[in-house]
């Protein structure tokens, strides 16, 4: 194949990248590939093909995430997490739901930390009662949070080994605490509060056979996501 054909093939493959990336760097990338082709001949593809496979999804994801608001970003990631949990539970993959939750929560935490939302998790908080009645779904979130704390205490007595007692009850207590702290933080910082509530309700999804926690978590998510993630604080006592 003649160099011009290689160049044309590479130019076509550049369409896999998002438009904004092509606009900013497409010409440079074509030129760089041309330089590499001149120096290394068709061996240039040996490094360019894996590079395409690696970087196209990254640039696509970055462009997609950049086009969302911060709330929509959290929603998109949350949908992926819940979808993955549902699929893995649906296929009866044993411990997979737990692993997916851990990975999903870790990913969500990383995204929120990167966006600076988690940094805002601390700060002024409303008293628990007005926090638990600030929106129509908030009492359910408060009940789920308290239930997690109760479940954490119960796990200490019910778990079959010390690992279960310590790990299970600590994790459950942490999620319960994050739920209640998120509710209390939300009146002052809606994005941070909502993010904490979404995070804390994630573990309720895989317990689908108990029905109630999953339904409660779904209702909470609908309420939180419908309330939006705009930066304006929600009034502390609205219903």
């Amino acid at each position, binding site marked *: 194949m003649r160099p011009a054909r290689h160049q044309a093939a590479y130019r076509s493959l550049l369409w896999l990248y998002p438009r904004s*990336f092509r606009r*900013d760097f497409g010409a*440079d990338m074509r030129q760089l590939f041309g330089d590499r082709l001149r120096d290394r001949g068709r061996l240039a593809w040996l490094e360019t093909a*894996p*590079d395409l496979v*690696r*970087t196209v999804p990254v*640039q696509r994801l970055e462009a997609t995430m950049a086009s969302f608001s911060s709330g929509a970003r959290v929603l998109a990631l949350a949908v992926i997490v819940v979808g993955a949990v549902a699929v893995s539970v649906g296929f009866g993959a044993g411990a997979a739901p737990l692993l997916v939750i851990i990975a999903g929560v870790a990913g969500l935490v990383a995204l929120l930390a990167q966006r600076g939302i988690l940094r805002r998790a601390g700060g002024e908080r409303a008293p628990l009662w007005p926090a638990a009645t600030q929106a129509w779904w908030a009492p359910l979130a408060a009940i789920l949070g308290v239930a997690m704390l109760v479940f954490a205490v119960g796990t200490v007595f019910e778990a079959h080994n010390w690992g279960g007692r310590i790990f299970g009850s600590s994790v459950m207590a942490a999620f319960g605490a994050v739920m209640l702290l998120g509710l209390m933080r939300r009146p002052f910082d809606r994005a941070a509060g909502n993010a904490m509530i979404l995070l804390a309700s994630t573990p309720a999804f895989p317990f689908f056979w108990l029905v109630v926690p999953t339904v409660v978590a779904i209702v909470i998510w609908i309420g939180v996501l419908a309330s939006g993630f705009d930066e304006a604080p929600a009034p502390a006592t609205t219903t």
Partner: protein
Amino acid sequence: MKEPEEFLPLPSATLHILLALGPGEKHGYAIMRDVDALSDGAVRMGPGTLYGSVKRMLADGLIEETSSRTDPELDDQRRRYYRLTGLGSKVSAAELARLEALVRRAGSAEWAQRLVPRLGEA
């Protein structure tokens, strides 16, 4: 603005690009060749990796595009040239210091000296 330490540890591609731009401004292909040489061929960047990193580094203020060439010999109107910013220099210095401290600490461990005898000489 972020402090240099907040960027650490740097992704491998970012560090190599910063090091390649240390001596002065370069265009994309010159950066790619220098990274090749700097790493003894261990780090081979394709166009997507290079310009993906460049995009992030421009956004973070680690590098900037230059409009005029300091050396007219370098001038190639078709290409875009990049150079380190003050922040980019500080970040690369901080990362090198971090790596140097890491190697020094690892070198003081006996097991590491058995694996890489040169570490004990440093």
